[in-house]
Each structure stands twice: as C-alpha cells, then as structure tokens.
C-alpha cells in the first residue's frame, strides 16, 4: 500500500508487467531451491503459495519486527547524502502521472438505528430494506 494513495497495486502491477508470479501480503518467506514458499495474510486466514523464482513479493507488517535505530546510526543519518536522480538518467520516459483524482468524499454519515419490538418485526424490517 503506497504511502500516497494506499492503492495496494505497485507489486501486483510489476508482477504483471514482468510476467512473474506474485506473493503479496507476505507474513513468512522461506527460500527453497529455485522457488520461494510464501505465507500470505488473506481475509480468511493464511494462505501458503509456492512460487517459482524469479517472483515479486510484497511484505505485510507481520513479516518482520523492525530493528531499533542505534544512536550512532541516528547521528549518521543526518550526514548521509540525499542523491536526486532525474528519471531521464535512468532511461525512464513518461514520468508524469497517469492517474487523475476525480473526487474525494467521506463515507455517508452513519444514520441512527431503530429499535423494534420483536424478532418477527426485526426480520420483516431486514427483508423490507433488502438486507436479506
């Protein structure tokens, strides 16, 4: 999930463009001979895939525990050079965005609920509003 639009598509797009297999939301990665076993976090639980290498993986937060920054490294961080490379230098053209944001809106405000007298009334209401 990219830090700007949270779209969860970069890894997947890359895999499609390269025609490589993909293992996204990886919470465990084990290398095997010429392949990688990826445990993925999915809505229903965990899914384990075996992908032939080369493959594209994206990490879930459960994959690793980030290290603590050390005091010397914090101090060195300020002095590290920040190199700016223009896209043209890498032989990449068309750096302008191809996504256009049309509209951003909040989800509708949550409307108040309604108390009903009996279970039958509840079922009737649910059926009426098309929920069941």
């Amino acid at each position, binding site marked *: 999930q990219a830090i700007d639009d949270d779209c969860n598509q970069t890894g997947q797009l890359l895999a499609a463009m390269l025609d490589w297999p993909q293992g996204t939301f990886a919470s465990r990665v084990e290398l095997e001979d010429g392949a990688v076993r990826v445990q993925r976090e999915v809505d229903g639980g965990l899914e384990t895939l075996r992908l032939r290498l080369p493959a594209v993986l994206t990490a879930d937060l459960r994959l690793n525990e980030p290290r*603590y*920054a*050390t*005091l*010397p490294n*914090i*101090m060195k*961080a*300020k002095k590290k050079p920040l190199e700016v490379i223009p896209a043209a230098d890498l032989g990449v053209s068309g750096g302008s965005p191809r996504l256009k944001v049309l509209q951003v809106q909040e989800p509708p405000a949550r409307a108040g609920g309604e108390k009903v007298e009996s279970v039958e009334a509840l079922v009737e209401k649910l059926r009426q509003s098309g929920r069941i």
Partner: protein
Amino acid sequence: STGLTEDQKEFQKVALDFAAKEMAPYMAEWDEKEIFPVETMRKAAQLGFGGIYVKPDVGGSGLSRLDTSIIFEALSTGCTSTTAYMSIHNMCVWMIDTFGNEEQRHRFCPSLCSMEKFASYCLTEPGSGSDAASLLTSAQRKGDTYILNGSKAFISGGGDTDVYVVMCRTGGPGPKGISCLVLEKGMPGLSFGKKEKKVGWNSQPTRAVIFEDCVVPVGNRLGAEGQGFSIAMQGLNGGRINIASCSLGAAHASVLLAQEHLTVRKQFGEPLANNQYLQFRLAEMATRLLAARLMVRNAARALQDGREDAAVLCSMAKLFATDECFGICNQALQMHGGYGYLKDYAVQQFVRDIRVHQILEGTNEVMRMIVARNLLQG
C-alpha cells in the same frame, strides 16, 4: 519533548520504544525475582546505550549530557532500577575514558561500551558516606603494584560486575590523599559481601566489596596519585543529572498511570477524573514534573558547556527533581487507592525504586550543603 532537536527526539523515541517493549513488560519480574537483566542491557548497549557520553574511538556514542539525560529519562519509564544501574555503568566508563591514558581507555572501554563487561563504582564505605573524603580503604605502593585493604559498602552491581572503579587512599588524610584504581573481578584479594535485601532497586544486586591484601598493578591507576577525589566529584556531577533523569522517567510514567486510572475508575457514579480535587492534583503533578525536567536539562546543558556554576546547578537539579518526583510518584500511588498498594500495579515499584534517589549520589542534605556553601561563599 519540548525544545528538543530532531536528533534528540529520535534518541528519545528509540529509548521510549526500547523501554516499552524490552523493559516495561519485565520490570515487575526483575523486581520480584531480583534478576540482573544482563541480556536486556546488552541489547541496549547494542543501540549505543552502554557508553552514551563516552568518546566514539573506544566504542562510545559521543553524545552530550543533555542527550544522555533525555535517554535515561525515557529508559526509566520502562524500568527505573535497571536504568539507574545503566547510568552508574555509564559514569564508570566515562571516568576511564576521560581520566585514563590511551592504554587504559583502549583496554577497558570497548568491552564496557558493548556491555560485554559491566562496571561498578566504589566510593562509599561503612564509615564514610556523605563524608566521602574520609574514606579509609588503603592502597600501599609496593614496587609496581598497590596493595589494597579495606571495604566498600552499598556497591551497585557488586559481585556480578566485572570492572570496579575504586577510590582509595594512597596518600595522607583528606581528599588530596585519594587515588582512583580500576580493579577486575578475579584479582586475588577481591571478594564480596552478601547480597543486600532492598526496598527497591532490586534488578541490581548490591553488595559490599572487600579488599584483603588485594594486588593491583600501578598501570590500573586512573590519573595521578591524589587526583582520585577530583575524579570522583567530576563523575558525580554527571551522575547526579543521570539519577535525577531516572526520577523524571519514573514520575512521568506514574503521571500517565494516574491519568489512566482517574479516567477509568468510577466512584459515586462518575469517573474519579470528574473530581476537581483530583484534577487539580494531577495538574500540580504535571507542573512540578515539567519544572523538575527543565532544571535537570538546564543543569545538563551547563555541565556540557563547562560553565563555572555547573556543579551547583547539578546539585540543585538532583535535589529538586528527586524530591519532587518522589512526591509525584507517591501521589500517583495515592490516586490509585487500594490498588496502588498492590504489586500487580506498577506505580508502587516506581515509588520504591526512586525513593533511594533522594539518598545516593550525595544525599539531598549534602546537595543543600553544596548550594549553601556556594551562596554564602560566592
């Protein structure tokens, strides 16, 4: 985190994270079982917390006294007793770094900065606490060794640590006859008393350190003969800021605990936090904590800038912060009601752990002596 630089906020963040994840979940167990958390401290040393204000060429982090205060305050929110020991360790390494010659610095400091080895500071004796200059442990010169006889009391880490920075008498009476020697566990004639049972500071063992014709090479002396007392006093300036910083951390954690409890606990049909008396009390606690913190940080700045009045400021800060913070932690315990008295709740451990900060590194009475002397002679 008011008034801190970007770097200092980063240090604080690492220390707070470390305290919350690696120390806070264990502080009660360390206290109850009297565990000296060697592995956890080594993890802290890997982040650079083993020699915070020691020069980098021997493994230290080369940070300032203010940076150090911020770090110890943050670590103390996780476990005050362990952080206090770490501050003593740091002071010992600094002494060797600052007053040792190149050979001594390179011999001792690297393994201390990484906490492969641990250090203890030996000044106090059964007969000389506040009157430190009257210490009796004698070091008689014999060829190229010193023969030590005497004992030290209340030594934090004593018996479990590897390196001992010992103040002893090589010359005549009074401060000018005192020198500083570095001893190592295993030296013949070096032994330890029983482990003391304490009200708090239980994650660090406290023992007497005994010297019986203990042979120490002359090459282990830091600085010149007769320089020991000056080394001790300079070390204590920083030590006082460090201990005061540990008190700040404990008070900070206690205020947060009290705040949480006041919003959750209900009596007479409403949360305790709805009572004006408790609101006012909490406000006073927070105000005093901030005042104490500013005093400590101001003293740290004065020390690192080499200001003439640094020693007095350090004494004032130690006096004020340790007293105020004990009051704050005690108030926080009171706000917890009966629950505050149970060991299941952390607030009582903060109270017990910082009580001793009003006594060691120079009693708060001695702090008053130092300030008064400065006011009346200056």
